[in-house]
């Protein structure tokens, strides 16, 4: 899963768009989605991002659904839960079993939470599926996130994939020798795998340090980054789009589905 998402980040229809623009867009839209007081705007946002991902970024619908399925499920449960337990006004429907009563205001609140969630997750999906992690880290640095955090994330990001590969190989090697037949053996094999990975990460750390020293490392990773300049036009477009959304938020502030 990580691998799939990751490879789209490096290879999608929007990969040539300046990453800062994408990040700016995702974050402002996320905030708009959060401050919306009715479900309308967040749902529009979700739909708009879906269109962007599908038609512009050319992300297959299956990948998009995979990404959204868990939040969607969670959101639906949330609506049900809030409808039943979060009402304070008069009852809406009496379900007739277990003394469960649905409340109108509970439902509206649940729907609002649901839509905000979908809106925000969409923004995140947009970011993750179209923007490589290295760009996010770079931006984090320019937002004054402490260097130690970005450096560790940078190394972690790279070596997660290396260790994933090694863990997979070791797992196959264990499977080949029937290491996972039965619960007891499975536990033992898994334990061995994990402790082995731990030792390897240790020796690998040593090796990396040597190779970094060879290239003149002296305690801080200086990241080199080339970015095309932020154009004026895309910023204006984003501002225009977000203003429209904000206007939408204002106009639909009283809107309730039921």
């Amino acid at each position, binding site marked *: 899963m990580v691998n799939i998402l*990751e*490879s789209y980040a*490096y290879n999608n229809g929007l*990969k040539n768009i300046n990453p800062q623009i994408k990040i700016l867009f995702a974050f402002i839209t996320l905030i708009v989605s959060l401050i919306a007081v009715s479900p309308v705007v967040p749902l529009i946002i979700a739909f708009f991002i879906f269109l962007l991902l599908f038609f512009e970024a050319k992300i297959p619908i299956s990948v998009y659904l995979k990404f959204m399925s868990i939040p969607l499920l969670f959101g639906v449960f949330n609506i049900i839960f809030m409808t039943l337990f979060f009402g304070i006004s008069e009852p809406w429907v009496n379900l007739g079993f277990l003394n469960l009563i649905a409340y109108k205001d509970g439902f509206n609140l649940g729907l609002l939470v649901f839509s905000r969630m979908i809106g925000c997750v969409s923004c995140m999906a947009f970011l993750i599926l179209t923007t*490589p*992690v*290295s760009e996010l*880290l770079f931006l984090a640095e320019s937002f004054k996130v402490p260097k130690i955090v970005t450096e560790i994330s*940078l*190394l972690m*990001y*790279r*070596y997660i*994939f*290396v260790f994933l*590969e090694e863990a997979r190989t070791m797992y196959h090697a264990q499977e080949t020798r029937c290491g996972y037949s039965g619960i007891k053996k499975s536990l033992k094999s898994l334990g061995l795998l994990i402790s082995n990975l731990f030792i390897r990460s240790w020796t*690998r750390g040593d*090796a*990396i340090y*040597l*190779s*970094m*020293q*060879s*290239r*003149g*490392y*002296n305690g801080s*990773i*200086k*990241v*080199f*980054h*080339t970015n095309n300049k932020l154009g004026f036009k895309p910023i204006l477009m984003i501002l225009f789009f977000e203003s429209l959304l904000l206007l939408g938020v204002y106009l639909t502030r009283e809107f309730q589905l039921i």
Partner: protein
Amino acid sequence: MITGSDSMEIINADNISYSYPDGTQALKNVNFSVETGEIVALLGPNGAGKSTLFLHFNGILRPESGKIKVNSQPIVYDKKGLMEVRKKVGIVFQNPDDQLFAPTVGEDVAFGPMNMGLELQEVEKRVKEALEKVDMVGYEKKPPHHLSGGQKKRVAIAGILAMNPEIMVLDEPTSGLDPKGASLILQLLYKLNEEGITIIISTHDVDLVPLYADRIYIISEGKIIKKGTPRNVFADINTIRGANLRLPRIAHLIEILQKEDNVPFEKPYPLTIGEARKRVLEHLDDKK
């Protein structure tokens, strides 16, 4: 600067010994020297001390006794001295995953030049040139884990090239690569050498080495047991076999033809297919 005639020697390990903290003595009185513009191969079985020796060349390890000189200057083991020597001597590590740590190819290649404190423009230029030299242009924004083994190796080489070293040291550059990939790497090194970089490689691939190396050192159990041109070194079959190495396949074939089948080939045995072909043709001509 290279001046005078005696400074042809670009790297010199003078009688160095080294033991790891656990007591393993990895190098015993090793003498190793390389002249400007050479391709030198360090040949030895696993555990012979090849990697350990290489780590001395840019001051990562410090010999217990003996001296390392680069351009006739002993390495100075302080911050400034080490930075100096690391600009001159670049090491490409055996496993590219140990070397490529940055999230993208471009950032990784830029790591060395950035540490050298170059202007951003200069860094960008060097990254571009280095990637051009190893034929990996267009991969700048790709993460290393989306590359093949051979491609990773080439990016690792680019990361060193971008620092414009005078000497490039490569620890088993062909290990883990398919024949085509290995051959491509060696061709690349040959090309870099023609552009003026002195090259030192370690390997146990005796078939490829004679094609490229000007001189060979053989290391076994921490000691240099033989040095010379490929022809001279491989003529000493007992030493080669004693070090758990073997002759190049082609030389082995000629040896068998001579010894078992009494085909009158003379020593030294040919080391490459080209030489062998010539000798066989000569032999056929003689018989006519």
